[in-house]
């Protein structure tokens, strides 16, 4: 999940979520960065409204049905 967290930090700092920035953040955290995952992440986030996606997590009703067996 570290790649996603890296994207979230960049989103908060207002920096662009691109390959270079993501790699920098992950590098600084000691992550052994895989270029293709960074690329995939950038591509996946291209048309996504991150604020909205993050807020959806907040909208989750507490105590929701936990599907855990």
């Amino acid at each position: 999940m570290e790649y996603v967290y890296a994207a979230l930090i960049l989103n908060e700092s207002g920096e662009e979520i691109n390959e270079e920035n993501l790699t920098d953040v992950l590098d600084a955290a000691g992550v052994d960065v895989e270029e293709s995952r960074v690329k995939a992440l950038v591509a996946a986030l291209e048309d996504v409204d991150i604020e909205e996606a993050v807020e959806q997590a907040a909208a989750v009703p507490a105590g929701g049905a936990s599907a855990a067996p």
Partner: protein
Amino acid sequence: MSAEAERKTETIPEWKREEVAELTDFVESYNSVGVVNITGIPSKQLQNMRRGLHGSAELRVSRNTLVQRALDSVGAGFEDLEEYVSGQIGLIGTNDNPFGLYKELEASKSPAPISAGEIAPNDILIPEGDTGVDPGPFVGELQQAGASARIMDGSIHVTEDSLVAEEGDEVSEELANVLSELGMEPKEVGLDLRAVYSDGVMFESDELAIDVDEYRTDIETAAAFARNLSVNAVYPTEQTAPLLISKATGEAKSLGLQAAIESPDVVPDLVSKADAQLRALAAQIDDEDALPEELRG
């Protein structure tokens, strides 16, 4: 000794002067002094109550005139308690706080039957139900007292909750008998605090009644508010750090799902989501021939 002093000694007997002096000492030795109504408490019960105060408070009973004289001589605001001195009363002193005193006294009250001629201390309600009394003249007595009553299944029933006396009403002989027959004890007997003078402030009993549940709720609300602020402002504390971690994780996951990020942590959920979407779409399809067997409704 002058003639005048001699005469005073005659009009105020020694024991009275000593009593006033003792009462004065009593008032001066406590932070909070109150007047309690002890009307109708049998002396033996009063002794028990006195002991029940566990040393957190002291009860002192004397003649009202002497109590008033003592309050007057202490002054400093205590004389304002005099207006509460009437009927059968006692002085109560404590270093505890007046709210605590009130709570303690209320908790020590016990129910008691009410007699004819007494004033109802609150509304008296005879509850709906089987009285357990065999059919007989008691039905009429109940009805006369103002209760709806009739004979059902071989005994006398009260058919609905019936108000038989309002607060402040004098209890009639008939009603007293009915309540006694039913075993109802509508009175609360105990030391009834009228007012407390505490550190310069007079508190009447209705000001002293605190709702502990309300305070408990306030504590819960305050704690929840602090927690909310800590999480929403992202100021982690020992208690809220786990919540913040969970929140951050949830946000990452939400983003992962919404953006269909092909991350190992997200992909199992994406597969679930895809399957759920498939089923949701299939549910909209009426023609079963368009669906594989496992998706047919």
